[in-house]
């Protein structure tokens, strides 16, 4: 058979589509990103609002908030990170399996918010790398959903060839 043409039945044409591995891989990850329940303060209530029926995050596949960091993909840091809590945030981030993402929700997680105090960490990106920042005090549920959309765009742009968790060289520790 020297011909390189692919001949298919009509039936088969309707059920088969060709794409890249990257697209399918990223599509699968984006549509089932499981957040970890990490509500620290008032922003947690807006996060709960996103999980509730009106601003449904289940349509993105994100309604399953895993309690264990081992099973979660996304850590939504919602609320004020105090100096006392900061090592525990770092510890829980370290327990998440790659690929993992962090969304800093609210101004307290981004930069300490209105609390310029001895007891408040001025931004969670002092201790863990953040992918998406959602400002607001608290951000409206729609703003958080826009944050999810940005995260999904970011995920769709990643490629298996360059993904840090598949490289042979060791990844940087936190």
């Amino acid at each position: 058979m020297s011909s390189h043409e692919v001949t298919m039945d009509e039936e088969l044409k309707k059920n088969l589509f060709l794409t890249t591995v990257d697209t399918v891989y990223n599509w699968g990850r984006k549509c089932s990103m499981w957040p970890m329940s990490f509500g620290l303060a008032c922003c947690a209530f807006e996060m709960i609002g996103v999980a509730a029926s009106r601003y449904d995050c289940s349509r993105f596949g994100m309604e399953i908030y895993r309690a264990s960091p081992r099973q979660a993909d996304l850590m939504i840091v919602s609320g004020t990170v105090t100096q006392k809590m900061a090592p525990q945030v770092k510890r829980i981030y370290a327990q998440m399996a790659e690929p993992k993402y962090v969304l800093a929700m609210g101004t307290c997680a981004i930069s300490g918010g209105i609390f310029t105090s001895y007891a408040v960490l001025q931004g969670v990106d002092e201790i863990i790398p953040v992918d998406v920042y959602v400002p607001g005090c608290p951000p409206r549920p729609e703003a958080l959903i826009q944050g999810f959309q940005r995260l999904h765009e970011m995920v769709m742009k990643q490629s298996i060839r360059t993904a840090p968790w598949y490289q042979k060289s060791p990844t940087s520790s936190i």
Partner: protein
Amino acid sequence: MTNEAILAKIREAYPTAVVDVPEEMTDFTIILAADQLFAVAKFLHDELGMDYLTDVTAVDYPDHFEVVYHLYSVERNQGLLTLKVLIADKTNAAVASVTPIWPGANFMECEVYDLMGIDFPGHPDLRRIMLWDGFPGHPLRKDFENRTFTFKELEPTRPKPPNW
């Protein structure tokens, strides 16, 4: 029993304890001598039935500390009686703990120790309750510099879990 009657009974039992009864306070306040606080507090609890201590707190003035106690009586349905103790020595501030009399004072005295640095001898387990043991300084003192800390700066002061 009114607050004035309580004051009269305290004066009768401990004549040297009451230092001052300031007129300008909106709530009835009795300022006691620091070394007689425990005796007067026990008297108030046992004899006069002030069985509910709602608050222990402290104030930082330029030359002295004040430790403030808010007392109620549940059995007599009597309202607020405020006791104050002035501590002149700010570097080694200490006043007897009232936890043996009112067990609810346990956490409140821990908070005062944590944020103001006032020691309470006689307390069963005096340690920091909101911050951790190695935290530099006592934040609610007026001479504590009002600043933020970075994570790296406070990292050496934190207690380490054994297998971190």
